[in-house]
């Protein structure tokens, strides 16, 4: 097995291929940082270029872009409170508060290191246990995916500091929005009010751009005067000291674990794994209340997770032809265009492709780390300008980026509406991440829940059939009961401290 990986490296470590990975990663970081432009979009742009280049270099470039967007998205999530890619949505929670405390460079540093380490850990684990990862991809059935989605959902309590009621409301709104469209099983139009544009459901980028991009700008408008002068920070060494990292190894490891294994389950991807990682790290930490105020663990966990996902999604794509998320699906398409069918045939006929790409994944993370570190200062210089200049650009990029994903202006209108709704909700302290969580996890849960029941002939016990499912189910029930208990305790304390005041 090691010979294969060495062989892969042999093919990758040429000047030409390295240059391709480098270019792709740089492009990815750039594209990822722009709100509204996402990873699949970067892939689609590079897709025609694969005609001019031969197979391996072209795909190495795409993979570099894939890895790069994971980091780029986090930069705008931290600095602008609006994630450049959906995978970075979780990083906003602790990333931005750090910026408000004047520690912008450190926040970016944590993100860079977390992404690189998590990605490399995921890559290493994926390469060493190819059969395990591939096995997970094949053996995970719709019941497993539905349970994972549900687990992510109950962790919503982790993102709500204060009112659980408002967190639940946000989550339910997101879930409700996710059901708009044609029913996945019998294609009945649900809540489409006769508009064909809604038949396909609410486009995810519209929800993200609206609730995160536009709503954030609207909410932060009152901060325009505050940031009038350029923050001339003393940007010291942005990267966190090694001792710090060693102390926080748990966050990175848990993130990588979730990223790799949840990424291997086709369909969930980084959007789900980052929240799970964040919630788990928070629950196991010594001071959970500090999460959401700028705890570096809150950056390390989701960052490490969303890069480890690349190992989890690439592997089943290469070995079985099962893409784990949208970007890998496009890479799969690129391979098909070059006449290569990922799967057992590919490993036999062109192993240099499979192992070359795997080796390239590791190299891409190293480049991402280097480029990321170099990019910290310019990004801060660019984005810490007067917000009055920055915000209009963010608004346009977010909206046009939303258009670019669908080539259709309707989602942009939806995004604006969501932006207004999100802003109003934020004014009243409704946590927006829960809405986005609902929109992301809603379809995953519903489609897989109903598919699992279809396959099992409506036997609900299928959700407790195998050991992994029993474990996840037990975890879910445990978390729900613990949260209810804690919330009741909190409410009792609150009513003791604040007797009702009547006018």
């Amino acid at each position, binding site marked *: 097995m090691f010979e294969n990986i060495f062989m892969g490296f042999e093919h990758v470590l040429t000047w030409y291929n390295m240059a391709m990975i480098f270019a792709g990663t740089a492009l990815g970081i750039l594209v990822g940082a*722009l709100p509204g432009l996402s990873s699949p979009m970067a892939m689609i*742009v590079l897709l025609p270029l694969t005609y001019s280049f031969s197979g391996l270099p072209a795909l190495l470039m795409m993979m570099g872009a894939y890895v790069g967007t994971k980091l780029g998205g986090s930069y705008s999530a931290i600095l602008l409170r609006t994630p450049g890619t959906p995978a970075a949505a979780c990083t906003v929670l602790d990333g931005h508060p750090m910026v408000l405390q004047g520690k912008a460079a450190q926040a970016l540093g944590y993100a860079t290191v977390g992404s690189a380490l998590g990605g490399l850990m995921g890559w290493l684990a994926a390469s060493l246990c190819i059969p395990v990862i591939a096995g997970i991809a094949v053996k995970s059935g719709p019941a497993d995916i539905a349970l994972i989605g549900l687990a992510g959902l109950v962790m919503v309590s982790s993102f709500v500091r204060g009112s659980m*009621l*408002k967190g*639940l*409301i946000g989550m*339910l*709104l997101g*879930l*409700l929005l996710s*059901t*708009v469209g044609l029913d996945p*099983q*019998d294609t*009945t*139009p*649900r*809540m489409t*009010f006769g508009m064909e544009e809604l038949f396909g459901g609410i486009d995810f980028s519209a929800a993200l751009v609206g609730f995160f991009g536009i709503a954030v*700008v*609207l909410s932060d*408008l*009152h901060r*325009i*005067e505050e940031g009038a002068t350029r923050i001339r920070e003393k940007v010291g060494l942005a990267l966190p000291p090694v001792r710090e990292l060693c102390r926080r190894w748990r966050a990175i490891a848990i993130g990588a674990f979730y990223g790799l294994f949840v990424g291997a389950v086709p369909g969930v991807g980084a959007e789900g794994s980052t929240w799970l990682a964040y919630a788990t790290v928070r629950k196991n930490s010594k001071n959970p209340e500090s999460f959401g105020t700028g705890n570096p663990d809150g950056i390390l966990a989701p960052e490490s997770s969303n890069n480890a996902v690349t190992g989890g999604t690439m592997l089943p794509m290469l070995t079985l032809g099962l893409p784990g998320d949208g970007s890998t699906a496009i890479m799969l398409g690129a391979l098909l265009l070059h006449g290569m069918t990922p799967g057992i045939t590919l490993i036999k006929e062109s192993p240099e492709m499979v192992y070359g790409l795997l080796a390239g994944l590791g190299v891409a993370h190293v480049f991402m780390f280097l480029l990321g570190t170099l990019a910290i200062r310019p990004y801060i210089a660019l984005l810490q300008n007067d*917000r*009055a*200049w920055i*915000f*209009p*650009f963010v*608004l*346009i*990029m977010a*909206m*046009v980026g939303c*258009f*670019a994903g669908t*080539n259709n*202006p309707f989602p*942009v*209108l939806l995004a*604006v509406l969501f*932006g207004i*709704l999100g*802003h*109003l*909700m934020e*004014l*009243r302290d409704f946590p927006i991440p829960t809405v986005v969580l609902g929109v992301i996890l809603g379809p995953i849960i*519903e489609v897989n829940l*109903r598919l699992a*029941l*279809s396959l099992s002939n*409506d036997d*609900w016990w299928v959700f407790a059939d195998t050991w992994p499912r029993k474990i996840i189910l037990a975890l879910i029930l445990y978390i729900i009961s613990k949260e209810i208990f804690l919330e009741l305790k909190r409410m009792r304390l609150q009513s003791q401290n*604040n007797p*009702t*005041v009547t*006018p």
Partner: protein
Amino acid sequence: MRDLAKELVVTGLLATIAATCLASMHATERPVLSFQYSSGLSFSTLPNLYGGLLLLLCLINAGKAVWLHKTSAPAPVKEKKAAFRAVATIFLLFLFVSLLGKMPFAALCAVFLCLLFFAYGKRKPLQIACIGLGGAAVLHLIFVTALGLRL
């Protein structure tokens, strides 16, 4: 009082969304199929569940707000300015969406950017024009030239 009003408005908005969705689901007929896919969950189960819970929680939230409310200080001036800017932004956003694709992209961006800069307090016309036009050019490069969008 203002706090309570705002809370009720937002909660009411969410409750209205929930109610509209529930009503819409109620009005949708189910196409009965000659062979069944799965009888456990129908097309309306989850939307009704989510909508119903959302409505319920909104009502609870409204009730809680009324029960617990205290008088609050009047809004500071800064908030009024931010509110004006928010309204201006929203108006311009709608304008942008409706004109997207109907006029040249670079021109639309330039106008939009300059107007927003003005709304956000910038007053030096040369500065506004430079960054607005320059920014529009860069956006055009990214979205029309590089990404090839039909705008």
